[in-house]
């Protein structure tokens, strides 16, 4: 349990991070096929930057924000005192062990535990930050196992656009650029679905939310409605 003081500091730092995120990215949430209403959900998003869950968190309405926990790699978020504070006290993250060998806790069990306490989750099924030229890396199987474990909870795809340009890997000064988070229609795992089928479906649902404007030069001007 957190002490009152720590909780307060966590809240204040959270608010400051949120203001900073808005200042740099003017981020807007687009709800496309699902409404920003209460209800337990598992948001799954593309992962290009450490700031990804901050953007999702920023565009969620405050009440939903408080009951939403990001799922993040313990190896990264426990490394320094500062990260530990931000990960645990500010964002109340579910920290999972990404190393398959000699891990103590089962990540899926940790996530299910958080769900059973009533939290919504933000997960990045690619597992690691995407530094390839591809828009999306193949999903790890965790999302499937999570969906199987709690099949009645909606899985909501959330596409985070442009954040990789704000702060490319290795840079430490962010460039102010407008980012969007697009939420799509929820999906669930079907009774008969195999792991491959489900993961392919989830990948396609997420990729479909990516704005076609990623490469603006490619679109013909005629395609623009006047």
């Amino acid at each position, binding site marked *: 349990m957190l002490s009152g003081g720590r909780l307060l500091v966590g809240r204040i730092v959270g608010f400051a991070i949120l203001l900073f995120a808005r200042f740099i990215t*003017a981020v*807007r949430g687009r709800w496309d096929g699902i409404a920003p209403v209460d209800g337990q959900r598992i948001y799954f998003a593309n992962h290009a930057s450490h700031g990804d869950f901050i953007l999702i968190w920023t565009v969620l309405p405050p009440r939903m924000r408080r009951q939403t926990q990001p799922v993040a790699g313990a190896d990264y978020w426990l490394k320094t005192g500062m990260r530990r504070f931000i990960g645990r006290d500010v964002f109340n993250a579910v920290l999972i062990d990404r190393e398959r060998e000699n891990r103590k806790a089962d990540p899926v069990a940790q996530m299910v535990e958080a769900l059973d306490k009533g939290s919504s989750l933000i997960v990045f099924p690619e597992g690691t930050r995407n530094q390839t030229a591809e828009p999306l890396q193949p999903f790890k199987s965790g999302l499937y196992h999570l969906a199987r474990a709690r099949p009645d909870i909606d899985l909501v795809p959330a596409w985070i656009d*442009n954040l990789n*340009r704000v702060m*490319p890997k290795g*840079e430490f*000064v962010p*460039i*102010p*650029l*407008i980012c969007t988070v697009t939420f799509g229609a929820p999906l669930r795992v079907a009774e008969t679905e195999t792991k491959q089928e489900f993961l392919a479906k989830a990948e396609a649902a997420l990729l479909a939310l990516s704005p076609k*404007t990623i490469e*603006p*030069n490619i*679109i013909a*001007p005629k*395609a*623009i*409605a*006047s």
Partner: protein
Amino acid sequence: MSMPHPDLLIVLAGIVAVLIVASAIGYALQRAAPEPNAVIENLNDRIQAWWVMVILMGLALIGGKTGVTLLFGFCSFAALREFATLTDTRRADHWALAAAFFVVLPVQYYLIWISWYGLYSIFIPVYAFLLLPIIAVLRGDTDRFLVRVAEVQWALMICVFCVSHVPALLSLEIPGYEGRNVLLIAFLVIVVQMSDVLQYVWGKLLGRTKIAPKLSPSKTVEGFVGGALSATAVGAALSWMTPFTPLQAALLSLVIVLMGFFGGLVMSAIKRDRGVKDWGNLIAGHGGFIDRLDSVVFSAPIFFHVVRYFWSAV
């Protein structure tokens, strides 16, 4: 902070009165419409955004030099953020862009704030334009180098240099007009915005002949001529708040209106090139910041220099 000039309060009261009438009309139209109507909703969104803009602008003008410089500095930041989003800059431009946002922009507005004309009028076109490509070239990425450099330069020119000439109006010293320079800003902004609104109204009423179908399909010759002439008349009628005679005010308004109109076309061309309809979606009904600023962007520096040349003592 000294008391705001009584003329400024009169102007602000007048604008608020106009907005109250506009809001009442918008409300009446919405009530009268048999079913939800997209045009009326858009109109009401715009009127609401107008309220926000007028309140911010009014507070800034009452706040004097610091208020106006801060407001337009923030507008430049938001505009530059929108512009940079649409550029094709790459990893190698990271430091050049960071310098544009966190060095060039604040320095430019600081120079405006301390009224250092000799430096703020050349700081971006000389120093920034030469130093930023140097920062970019040090990364060694030559792919589409000219395009990338040009994009950053134009972003700064449009969003920072041009916009900063609005608060720069405060540093002019016009004999017999001391302490009233904020009214020049009010004059410029009112003429530009009235021109936009009146062109829209005339276009809706009489618009037949498209003026630039490829760039801006909604703009018509009738709208342009009607809007330009009536905005010029509005400018002439506002000469009491300026150091100009009614004829001079009309001529300056015409310059403002023409620059605003053609500036709008240039900005449309850039949007089309980038494949977007609006620069952003920050203001409901108005698109992004640049969508609101585009006419001011082109008219502000010209208005500034014409007034400086003919009227200012420094």
